[in-house]
């Protein structure tokens, strides 16, 4: 199958997204800050002065050198290097050449970025609506609560790839005037939104639950309506608590835009596949991988910094 390439396959995301709710539910007990887990997420260097950092540098270099040596010593090493790491092919696939039948991977990544941004905005809104419905009380909203629950169960349970197929091939097949005449990128964004909103709504829900009930009581006791209390008191605190898991989901979303390639949209992964099947060299996939890393790594570091900053803010508050 065209899009089922191991580097960006659907499986990657199941892990990342699944980890989020469990991570949260473990740490969201009233009064426990969600940021509490493990202090500064990945603690790369053990603290302990210069000697420690020298030792860690040397051991890192040794491990790297060993891995490179194993790679170079492998019987098929030169073949793999030629097929996946050929600099000429990497450059060719990056800039693209339509006259020779392949697209620029570098240009195609823009489609991924645009799909990511569009989907992210819609997910943040839709997921919040679902979370608020699920958190609501009162008999009138009962049918909506059931619907929201079914929605979340359904889209968390169905592999994203299948949702992409269903939306991307199903909606056009309906031959409706507006709905069936959109581009594959639009269908991709719809599929991503449907699937991710289910996950993100659970993150929101954990965030809402992490705000202590006494905050609601305080807000309502001042005569604020439920909506006002939610907007100014509950949501700001909830969202602050869930920024790391939210960003984690969005890192995952950035990669999953590659799945839209199965519909035929020329995004980075699809452009790389086309290059590979045209020129019979897969260095284009390496280019796509590097481009995705360039997108996701800054976001991951940004997440770490946010966690760190919040921890420090809270500590400063606790000391004073």
């Amino acid at each position, binding site marked *: 199958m065209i899009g089922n390439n191991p580097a960006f396959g659907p499986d990657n995301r199941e892990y990342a997204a699944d980890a989020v709710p469990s991570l949260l539910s473990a740490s969201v007990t009233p009064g426990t800050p969600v940021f509490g887990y493990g202090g500064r997420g990945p603690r790369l260097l053990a603290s302990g002065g210069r000697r420690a950092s020298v030792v860690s540098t040397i051991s890192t270099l040794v491990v790297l050198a060993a891995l490179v040596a194993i790679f170079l010593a492998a019987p098929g090493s030169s073949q793999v290097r030629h097929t996946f790491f050929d600099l000429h092919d990497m450059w060719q696939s990056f800039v693209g050449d339509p006259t020779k039948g392949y697209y620029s991977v570098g240009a195609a990544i823009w489609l991924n970025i645009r799909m990511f941004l569009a989907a992210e905005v819609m997910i943040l809104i839709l997921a919040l609506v679902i979370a608020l419905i699920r958190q609501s009380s009162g008999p009138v909203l009962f049918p909506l609560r059931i619907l929201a629950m079914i929605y979340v169960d359904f889209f968390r349970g169905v592999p994203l790839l299948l949702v992409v197929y269903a939306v991307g091939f199903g909606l056009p097949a309906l031959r409706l005037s507006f709905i069936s005449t959109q581009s594959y990128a639009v269908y991709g964004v719809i599929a991503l939104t449907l699937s991710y909103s289910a996950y993100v709504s659970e993150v929101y829900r954990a965030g809402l639950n992490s705000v202590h009930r006494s905050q609601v*009581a*305080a807000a*309502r006791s*001042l*005569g*604020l309506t439920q909506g006002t209390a939610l907007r*100014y008191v509950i949501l*700001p*605190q909830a969202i602050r608590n869930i920024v790391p898991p939210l960003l984690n989901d969005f890192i995952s979303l950035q990669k999953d835009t590659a799945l839209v390639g199965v519909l035929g949209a020329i995004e980075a992964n699809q452009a790389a596949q086309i290059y590979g099947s045209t020129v019979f060299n897969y260095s284009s996939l390496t280019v796509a991988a590097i481009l995705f890393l360039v997108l996701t790594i800054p976001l991951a570091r940004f997440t770490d910094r946010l966690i760190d900053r919040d921890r420090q803010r809270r500590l400063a508050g606790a000391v*004073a």
Partner: protein
Amino acid sequence: MTVDSSPGAMVLDDVYKSFGSNPVLSGINLEVAPHEVVCLIGASGSGKSTLLRCINLLEPIDSGRISLLGQQVTGPGIDANRVRRQVGIVFQSYNLFPHMTVLRNVTLAPTKALSIPRAQAEAAARELLARFGLADKQGEYPDRLSGGQQQRVAIVRALAMQPQIMLLDEVTSALDPELVAEVLDVIRELATGGMTMLIATHEMGFARDIANRVCFLEEGMIIETAAPAELFTDPKDERTRRFLRRIVDAGRM
């Protein structure tokens, strides 16, 4: 101090409340006159906090009637938000909004619930904060304040809605002993200003000092109500005597 005899600011008529099968309030009758200060004393779990929360409509009651400022507030068709805007409540654990500065904590409700223009609300808030010695704290976040300061901000936050009645729920119980006085001073000032207050407290000395009347609660019932001088020195009911003896034995009076 004399209490004028106009109709009650707060009238509770046979109020019942239970959580599941656990009765918390079992027929509370209480009338608080305007400008009167009434203290509720009693062991933890005697229903003091629940009573205050019911008056503020944070908890629905099972049966009975509550009237505030001459208007019945229990029963169908009551706008709880309007009632709460006239009744301030301060909690044991402050419950300030941690993501807002002190000033914003105080101005949120006036601007959002009463639609007072922001500049006007802030001016009023600064004045209140200054009155309670918090003028230099308006830009701080609650986490950076001491417990006593946080509780004073919580009182100011409630006062910013210009309530006619204040309910205080063990407002000094979470405080270090040396911080209790600054909060009690604030409450004293409110009493002097004529605020109608219902105060649940463990500070017997303070209750004796400030209250016009003291009610002793046990198992969701008001066992005895009297002027503090009478209730603390010559309690009529055996249960009141037993409670006060325990307090004295614990060195808390």
